[in-house]
Structures are given as C-alpha cells and as structure tokens.
C-alpha cells in the first residue's frame, strides 16, 4: 500500500509518499517561517495564502521524486486538525479533490497522532505500550500509548505549550521568530548556576504542566539585569534548564505511574538537544529507552501524516465527509 501524505496545519506545507514495503519514498517541505518572522508570529491568513500557492507544485515534485505514478497511490492522508482552520482547509480540500479524481480512499489524520508516530519512521521503532511526550509550539502532552489510536492523556499544559514559552521568552529577549531554537542556541553560551528558575508544578503530584510563569520569570530576571550578552546567555541557559528539568521530572513520574520502560518524544521541541540528553540520562538510569524522530521529522512534515494514514487506511478506516477540526482532543481518536 502506498500513501500520499499532506500536512498544512500551521506554517509548513509538507508532502510525502510512504510505501508499506519500501518505507518513505520522498518527502518535501516548504516552510513559511521566514515570511512570518516579519510579524513576530504566524499570521493565519498569510499562512493559508502561501499553502494554496505551494501545495500543488510540492505534490508534483514529491510524486516525481518518489518515482510514483498516480495510479500507484492507494490512498491519501491529510491533517484534519488540530491547527489553523484556514491552513487545514487547504490541505483537506486538495486531498479530497485528488481522492475524488483518483477514486481512492482518503483519511483525515490528527496532527498530534502524526507527531506521536513520527519515531516509527526510523529503523528502530518503539513497541507498544509506551509513554509519549509531545512537545511543540502548540502542545505539551504526556500520553500513554497502548496501540495506535489508544491514547490515554496523562497530563498537559494548563497554559502555554513549552515551545510557545520558548518562543515567547525568546521574543522578550529580542531574538527573531521562531525564537525557540535561537534561545536554545544562545543557552549553549550560558553558564550554569548564575540564575535559578522555578520548576513549575513539580512540588505537587500530577502530570500537568505550566510554562507561562517561566516566561514571566525570565522577563523579570532580564529587566533586573545588566542585559549584557553574557547575561542574556545565562538567562537562556537557566530558562532552558528549568523547562527541560520540568519535562524530565514529569516524564519520570509518568513512567513510574504506568510502569512502562519506553519513552517516545516528538514535536518541534523534541529537536532540543539538551532535552534529548537529559531524557537519555533518565531512561538509562531507569533501564529503559528513549525513541526520537530524526531532527527533520520533529517539526511538522508530511511523512508522519502519510505513515499514520497508512496505518489507518490499512485497517479499513476512511472518511466520507470533508471535515477540519481546529480543536480535536487526541483521546477522541478511534482505535485500530
């Protein structure tokens, strides 16, 4: 079975062809980040306009790169939520139009399920059950995964997503959008120990997160400082250390609570090298293993949507109606 995957939930147009036997045949990505940088964040209308300009040439390029004729495609998967409604509509309308013309099944995929399954695009795949930490600009979730579609929410952020806190703190510090990765880069120059940030919500039981206080703490620390280049790096270090430490503490709790030894991390923030090294240490100490997607599949991409679509279409699921779901709890998904 060979699937075309289409992702347009935010500011990246991602297209991929995934084959059940041969694996990933091609994936193409167009990022709008540069365009949105001038506005300090994603402008939804501009995102939709750019998706509809780029999507067809990107699909054509992807099919050519995968050496795939349209008759070889057995189904189409597109991101139907959560995300920006106008952006989601572009991918979903094109996917449905294509499916109609090709007379092939089509399925809307939950964006976070795509992320959650992204580590399955690698050679070493996590076996079920496992705990997944999904961390991006829009989400911070801890989920127990017992099978595809069987997701129990263990905890989530009650305010900002962790990636959002990275981006907002970076903005406060004068870094360009998207600032999260820039903040992490700056933290490499920072010195441990100069500032100590709180670890929100770790002093009480539970697996929920809160990250908006860390951003405020960073703003106050910056305001009361000399704002030198070294100070900025030190603040970046302390912020990242606190955010990552908070995630690590909650992951440890989640693994203990569920009794699982496998941890999957995915989403844009899973590209953070400090987070990766800290989780590696944690799982080594627990005798378990961490699974990550490769760096290019941490952020939004079509490959993870094609992969998730393959699993669901193979199980006989398909959509009959064109729907997008800007808000869509992961726990509402159908199990396979």
């Amino acid at each position, binding site marked *: 079975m060979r699937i075309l995957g289409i992702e347009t939930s935010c500011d990246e147009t991602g297209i991929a062809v995934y084959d059940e036997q041969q694996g990933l045949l091609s994936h193409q990505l167009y990022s709008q980040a540069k365009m949105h*940088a001038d506005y300090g964040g994603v402008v939804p209308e501009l995102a939709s306009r750019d998706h509809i300009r780029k999507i067809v040439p990107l699909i054509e390029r992807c099919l050519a790169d995968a050496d795939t004729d349209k008759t070889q495609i057995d189904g189409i998967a597109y991101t139907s939520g959560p995300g920006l409604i*106008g952006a989601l509509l572009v991918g979903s309308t094109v*996917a449905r*139009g294509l499916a109609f013309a090709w007379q092939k099944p089509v399925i809307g995929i939950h964006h976070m399920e795509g992320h959650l399954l992204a580590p399955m695009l690698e050679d070493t795949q996590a076996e079920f059950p496992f705990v997944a930490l999904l961390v991006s600009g829009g989400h911070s979730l801890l989920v127990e995964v017992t099978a595809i579609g069987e997701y129990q929410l263990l905890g989530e952020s009650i305010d900002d997503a962790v990636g959002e806190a990275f981006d907002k703190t970076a903005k406060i510090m004068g870094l360009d959008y998207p600032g999260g990765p820039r903040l992490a880069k700056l933290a490499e120059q920072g010195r441990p120990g100069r500032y100590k940030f709180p670890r929100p919500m770790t002093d009480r039981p539970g697996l929920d997160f809160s990250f908006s206080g860390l951003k405020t703490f960073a703003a106050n620390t910056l305001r009361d400082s000399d704002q030198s280049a070294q100070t900025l790096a030190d603040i970046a270090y302390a912020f990242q250390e606190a955010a990552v430490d908070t995630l690590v503490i909650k992951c440890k709790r989640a693994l203990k609570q569920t009794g699982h030894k496998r941890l999957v991390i995915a989403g844009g923030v899973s590209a953070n090298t400090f987070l990766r090294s800290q989780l590696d240490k944690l799982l080594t100490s627990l005798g378990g293993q961490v699974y990550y997607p490769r760096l290019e599949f941490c952020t939004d991409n079509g490959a993870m949507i094609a992969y998730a679509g393959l699993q669901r279409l193979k199980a006989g699921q398909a959509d009959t109606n*064109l729907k997008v779901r800007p808000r869509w709890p992961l726990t509402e998904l159908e199990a396979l």
Partner: protein
Amino acid sequence: MKTILALDTSTEACSAAVLTPTQFVSEFEVCPREHNQKLLPMAEAVLQQAGISLQEVDYIVYGQGPGSFTGVRIATGIVQGLALGSDKPTLGMSSLLAMAYAVFKKTGQTRVIAAIDARMGEIYLAAIEFNEAGMFRYLIDECVCAPEQALDALDKTHSYAAVGTGWHTYETVLTSQINADINADIYLPDAASMAELAKLTATPEQLLSAAEVSPVYIRDKVTWQKLPGK
C-alpha cells in the same frame, strides 16, 4: 462544444454546474460555513445527473473571487485537487463577472454594476458592459474600494443594472451616485453562470494547469502589522 464542470464557493452560496453539448445541470445552496462539506458532494451530484464522469469533462471552472478569503480557497483547493488528479485544465472566473452576466442573461440589460460587501466599510466592485453575443468589457476594473464616489468613472447618461450584496448593504450611498436598477432576484454568484460564460467566451490560452489555479483576493492589504523596522 465543450463539457464544463464549474464550482463556486466565493460567497455564502455554494454551487456546482455541469454543461455538456446536450445538458445543463446545476445546484445552488446558500449555506455559510458548510462549503467544505457540501461542495464535493454537490460536484459529484451534478456529474451524476449529467451522467458523466470527471474524465469526460474538458475543463473545470472555479470561482476565483473576490469574496470570502476562506470561501474562495475552498473551491480553489478542491479544483486544484480535481485538476491535478484528472489532468484537466482549469479556468478561473470572477464572482463579480458571473453575477453581472447572470443579470445580463436574465434581463438583457447590457451595463451591469456588480458589488459584493467586502466588510470593513468597503465593496468589491466591477462595472461590465456586454454585447448581444455575451462578449464583455470592463467599464470599471475589479477593485476593492469605499462605496462613496465608487461610481465616478461611469457615464451617468447611460442606464445600469445593479447586482450583489454591496448594493443592499450600501444602497443609499450607491444609488445616490447613479441611476441603477437593483436586481431583486440575483444576489450571489453561481457556478451555472460561470459555466455558461466560460462556454461563450473562454479561449484555449486562458486555460490553466492545476499548479496555476489561484484565488483572486483583490484585497491584499489586510490588518496585520509587521514588527517595527521589518
């Protein structure tokens, strides 16, 4: 004679039409916020009623706008998918032109001023003159503007027909500028007019590939703000 599939969701109306050498079938429904769920089933229904498949269509006409940004992108996105999947060429059709043509066809009035309420105190506007064969020229090119003084460029000695939501929202300010007969029956653009006008006027050079299918927003300056110095 060509076989045409036409789809439009540029305004509150969702519509689809098939025009073949022997048949003309169409569907039209005012269903705001349901276009993404209704358009494709509607396209399937008109093809079925005409007894043809997508492969038998010569080209696909889409309502390119102006109108609702999201609405325009729904038809555009679906037509991109249909055209890419079936290797069919496409043709973009203006929502303002389609309404003007519908009035000309129904009433025989040759000069039509079409206006769609563009919100934010503005209208999408075009004035079009048709000859008896249905060929047309623009008296006012498509634009977005305030309704005040919008019709200054028109020759006031002629009589005009008027059509579209803009004429209803700004009736007083527009009718005070010109002697125009507001059409009471036609309110929104529809795919049937687009198909008919395409049949009359489209040339092979106008046909576009799937990758070239694009919305015409007219309003390109929207209320987002760049960061200082960008």
